[in-house]
């Protein structure tokens, strides 16, 4: 399974998101520290889930970071997060 698919599966299972978009941005970082041939090092995540209601920004990031701890400790070098609760205006 690709790292991207692993991220999608874990986030779906943990947060039952209304919407989820995981974008591999590794190609934007070619030549930069952390980039590896084959990509799958830099990801951007847009996720809307009721699980984030009433949670602070830091709490939301911590929830996602904990869910993806294995990926972050492994091949994933950068993870940009855009977590929202349903109905929130995207920032």
């Amino acid at each position, binding site marked *: 399974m690709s790292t991207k698919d692993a991220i999608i599966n874990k986030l779906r299972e943990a947060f039952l998101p209304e919407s989820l978009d995981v974008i591999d941005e590794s190609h934007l*970082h070619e030549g*930069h*520290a952390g980039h590896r041939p084959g990509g799958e090092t830099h990801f951007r995540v847009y996720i809307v889930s009721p699980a984030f209601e009433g949670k602070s*920004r*830091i709490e939301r*990031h*911590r929830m996602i*970071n904990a869910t993806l*701890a294995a990926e*972050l*400790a492994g091949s994933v070098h*950068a*993870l*940009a*997060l*855009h977590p929202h609760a349903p109905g929130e205006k995207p*920032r």
Partner: protein
Amino acid sequence: MSIEQFIDNEVKSNDVVLFMKGTPQFPQCGFSGQVVQILDHIGVGYKGLNVLESAELRNGIKVYSNWPTIPQLYVKGEFVGGCDIIREMFQAGELQQLFADKGIPVDVAA
């Protein structure tokens, strides 16, 4: 002094501390660079600590904050967030408000 004590001392003895890759003058990562730009734009003084100079610091700050990525911003000893959070707070005016609430001077002409 342990790395935890070193970090604790840094974040408590400086109003604003940025743990980053590279230096404020020469950031070596786009995410660290974005936070540097925001802080410079607001005109707040801060201390930059380069985690690339020390594997112990790089790992130590991740454990200290329970946060897996760099950069990390501390204000008055309190962890505020990484690049995404800092940018969102800046765009919403919340970061400027945080500095005002904490009594940290910023260059209003910026």
